[in-house]
């Protein structure tokens, strides 16, 4: 299950990154690395949380 979550985290990263190509134009003043931050957040949660046995 943990491995699956890790794969999901990796796929999330790719999907969000690809999705950014057609996403709304960012606000240049503050957007910065927002897209990468979003995918890092999803990936981090996927890696960090496991099911209790």
């Amino acid at each position, binding site marked *: *299950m*943990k491995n*699956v*979550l890790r*794969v*999901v985290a990796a*796929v*999330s990263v790719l*999907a*969000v990154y690809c*999705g950014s190509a*057609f*996403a*709304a*134009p*960012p*606000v240049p*003043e*503050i*957007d*910065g*690395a*927002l*897209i*990468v*931050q*979003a995918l*890092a*957040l*999803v990936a*981090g*949660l996927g*890696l*960090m*949380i*496991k*099911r*209790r*046995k």
Partner: protein
Amino acid sequence: MEQLFVHTVQLAGWMDGLLGYQTHVVAGTRVFGTSDFNVEISDACLGYQGASLVLLLLGAYILMQRRQLKFPLALVVLPCAAMAVWLLNSVRIAALIIIGTEWSPGIAQQGFHSAAGWVNVIVVSMLAIWVLGYTALFTRTPSRGGLAFDDQAITLLPQVVLLGLSFLTLLGTAEFDWLYPVRVLVTGVVLVWFWRRFALGELDLRLLPVGMGVLVFVIWIGMLPNDPAVSRQFALMLFSAPVWLVATWMVCRVIGAGIVVPLVEELAFRGFLLELVESRAGQVLAGQTSRRVVSVALTSLAFGLLHGAWLAGVIAGVGFALARLWRGRVMDAVVAHAVTNLLLAGYVLWMGYWSYW
């Protein structure tokens, strides 16, 4: 697309109406709002990209988990998730209009507009994955004991908290990042609370990590020159605030840069991820050197991407990774990172080169 616009503003207008705000669409346009504040809603603001992304994520998850999931019931989550994104997008537009009308057009049009869509996508994705993977309704192997932190991956927690807070504070940000102290304070509390589980060891100052920190600082300011226009604008906004607020913000900014951020990022990148990638690389690469090179390269790339200036970030990541590998102590990477950030903070304050912040 026109129908999507009509339904979105109808729903947003209905929600605003419930709270006592009269909204309207300017005839022949896509301008929507109250008499005091309105926005033009483009195609990109209608939530279909967010729904597409969530469908993509969940589709991949369902495909990988096909042996554990109950079919065709699991597929029901897909339209529900897409609908949830659209509904939350209407909530976002309704909230944006209220924020712009009542509070601050700047926050509505900048931070909130920018962050709320991502918050929607993250929340719906994680909730849908949780529902699919952990509940007896959709999976053949439901969790009986709930969720817990992975013992090794717990070192990612401060980074995840900081990232989450970045989105939440961005929701209430206009031109200037006044909520930075909130991120530092909350992340600092998380660091203290879980400190024993991070097993960072004692602070043992040695010349090499300090020197590496100095080197990364020199490379950073060499690669990224000060932007006078950005610095001017930054100073204008910062010093227009009361003295106590400016002082508080600056103290928190230095503590954040010099202590909190190095701990958070080194625990995540040179602590957990470096070891994870190295152990995974061990499954395909025989030599220890090649495993090290791959793990340093990949984690430094990820570290660079997380920063706006990605190339300088990658180089900094390599420097901090070398400090970590020298004695095998994450604390050495923390020291190198802290030295870089504190030198940069001093440089910013001394020279007035605010664009580095």
